[in-house]
């Protein structure tokens, strides 16, 4: 099923889902897959069980009135727990919060009442015929991992964004690139410098050696030369 909000330009390597905002910016959302969602659901299920257990014990002391309240509570918690958390806490139920997930509309905006109610009511069908079989099936075949309720409600479960920390660039003498670089080449060179700390020295050398010839730099000093070019791209060059 095609999503109208995300015209597929070319098949991406990763699972990112691009949303175009009214400002003309492409926002990448990262949809969450089956396993992490199943774990989040299991946590929510546990929490609900715990709440109900504690409340039932407390209500048992209230006798008949407690029984009435108990069944109202059972109703409220089994049908409304997810909806209330999702709408009032910006798309995060406790389980989702724990695993860094949130529910958003297809266009990346926070989920509202009707969409949340819909996706949680239709959970009943996702559960059929046993243990989320249909939901899992739909989730596995859908490009953005939607279960049936998500398709009908037009919602997505995505990873929340985590704060980024500024990478330390390795020291090098800023210099100009010997050949003019295109935009994507610039980003590749900068990416090489920014992510160097995450790579092993052997891998760093290997990658740099690949670039030595096209960039017209000396192969033995390729790493420091490329770092120099990255510095040159960022700041003033002599």
């Amino acid at each position, binding site marked *: 099923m095609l999503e109208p909000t995300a015209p597929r330009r070319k098949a991406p390597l990763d699972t990112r889902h691009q949303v175009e905002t009214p400002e003309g910016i492409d926002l990448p959302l990262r949809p969450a897959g089956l396993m992490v969602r199943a774990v989040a659901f299991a946590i929510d299920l546990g929490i609900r069980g715990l709440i109900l257990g504690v409340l039932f014990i407390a209500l048992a002391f209230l006798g008949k009135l407690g029984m009435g309240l108990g069944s109202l509570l059972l109703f409220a918690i089994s049908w409304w727990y997810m909806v209330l958390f999702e709408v009032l806490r910006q798309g995060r139920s406790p389980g989702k919060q724990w695993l860094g997930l949130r529910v958003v509309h297809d266009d990346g905006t926070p989920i509202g009442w009707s969409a949340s109610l819909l996706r949680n009511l*239709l959970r009943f069908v996702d559960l059929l015929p046993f243990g989320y079989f249909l939901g899992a099936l739909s989730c596995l075949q859908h490009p953005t991992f939607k279960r049936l309720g998500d398709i009908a409600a037009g919602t997505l479960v995505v990873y929340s964004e985590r704060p980024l920390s500024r990478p330390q660039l390795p020291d090098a003498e800023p210099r100009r690139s010997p050949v003019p670089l295109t935009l994507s080449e610039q980003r590749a060179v*900068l990416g090489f*410098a920014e992510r160097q700390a995450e790579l092993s020295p052997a891998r760093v050398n290997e990658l740099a050696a690949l670039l030595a010839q096209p960039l017209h730099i000396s192969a033995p000093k390729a790493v420091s030369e490329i770092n120099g070019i990255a510095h040159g791209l960022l700041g003033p060059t002599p």
Partner: protein
Amino acid sequence: MKQSLFESHHKAEWERFAVALERLEQGKETAQVSDFPKAYRRLCQHLALAQARGYSSFLIDSLQQQVLRGHQQLYRHRSRLGAQIISFILADFPRLVREQWRFVAAASLLFFGSLIGFGVLVYLFPELIYNLIPAEQVREMQGMYDPVAGHLGRSAERAASEDWVMFGYYVMHNTGIAFQTFASGLLMGVGSGFFLLYNGMIIGAVAGHLSEIGFGQTFWSFVIGHGAFELSAIALAGAAGLKLGWALIAPGRLTWGEALRLAARKSVLLVCGAMLFLLIAAFIEAYWSSKTSVTPLTKYAVGAALWLTVAVYLLFAGRIRHAPE
């Protein structure tokens, strides 16, 4: 412009934006609220510039993240829930029911058709009930509506506090059925159709059986009041489910997913209305239908009035548009 210069130019602005964003996300008032859209659009521009100039991934990713968070705050769905609920009850819901009359008619036909059909069948062929409902449950039903026993409803002796128990029970049980009837419509409408027929069959069979063995007076006077809301709620939930199913069977010129999404947006409102009906029904069932001090005749009169109310509400409410809507 080099990246470091660009960053130092706009650093202060980005920090101010981050502070405003944090306060908005926590739901606090912020002094910068009126400037927020402007600041957000400037940030979008910076992101576009950063992308166009090939700045580093870190800068682009962090700007992208800020824009994403800003997007979610700026385009948040702010709903005036109170006003919406009132206009929904007064006008939007009955209008929606009339607009979707085809599905409502189909669902009513399935549900009330099977109810009346099986009621008549069981009345004419009494032993049929044992093919439809287990004998044990039939005995239980008979116990509940036995005119000699002098009590009504599901429990033996009802004190005032027990009305609470029954209220809770009815809300949970009936709403569960309505939700099931709706949600299973996603299976090409087959699920909704099944639940409508099945529930109609059970209710019809019980009604036919109890009338046939002479418990009709206690049974009918008990159910007529809340039945107005309860039965129509089930039919409406079924109609919402059929609408979902129909979107899959005949999506027209849309893709399946899109057709389903559009249909679901309407049908969820129908379900909300059905939920409201069920709440009213549970209230009537617990506090009025179970009263034994009222004569059956009064109950029939009130019941008829309630049926009429439902019909008039669904048919006529919201036909005149008032100015402030």
